[in-house]
């Protein structure tokens, strides 16, 4: 069975600094998706970034980028120029490439932004 592990329950970063959230996963599949979702205090689940396993290039969305290491099964999220609005719970997630396959979430990392 696939699993997603986030080993950092909480992290803090100074506003305008850079922070990296860690994630590892386990799968025997070769074709899959990886995601980072953000859950602010409103509890809404918001997609931050997506990575397709077949793509070697790391995904980037504005201040958010990932370091995808397929062989190591590692998928970290880097947030540059941290802003107060980035404070949230961040979930790493995995899904096989089958269209109806469920998304499996890690336990989350709560990110605090220090002014």
């Amino acid at each position, binding site marked *: 069975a696939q699993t997603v592990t986030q080993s950092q329950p909480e992290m803090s970063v100074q506003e305008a600094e850079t922070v990296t959230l860690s994630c590892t996963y386990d799968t025997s599949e070769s074709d899959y*998706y990886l*995601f980072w*979702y953000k859950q602010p205090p*409103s*509890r*809404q*689940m*918001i*997609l931050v970034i*997506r990575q397709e396993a077949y793509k070697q290039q790391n995904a980037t969305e504005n201040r958010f980028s990932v370091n995808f290491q397929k062989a190591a099964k590692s998928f970290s999220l880097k947030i540059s120029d941290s802003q107060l609005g980035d404070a949230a719970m961040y*979930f790493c997630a995995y*899904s096989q490439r089958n*269209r*109806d*396959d*469920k*998304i*499996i*979430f*890690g*336990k*989350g990392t709560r990110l605090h932004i220090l002014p």
Partner: protein
Amino acid sequence: EPEVTQTPSHQVTQMGQEVILRCVPISNHLYFYWYRQILGQKVEFLVSFYNNEISEKSEIFDDQFSVERPDGSNFTLKIRSTKLEDSAMYFCASRPNTEAFFGQGTRLTVV
């Protein structure tokens, strides 16, 4: 921008009562899901639904739970006899073929 809509945003119910949580997925999506998040804990998969039938369900999704897509737009989750431990945030999601789009959630409180 299209979005997944869930109603109600908060539901309080007596233990043993039936509740129906409602969701309107994004119209051209074909794959639908329910997830549950007990306060402060991880997001847990309940069930996936495709082509008017369940494609996968978790151990949590026992006989107390059922899902339905009654009219081609709504997607409902029914809990027949609620227990205290059913108190959680319930998220509906729909998916084209990549990421899932989540609704804003229904907070269910069983008293």
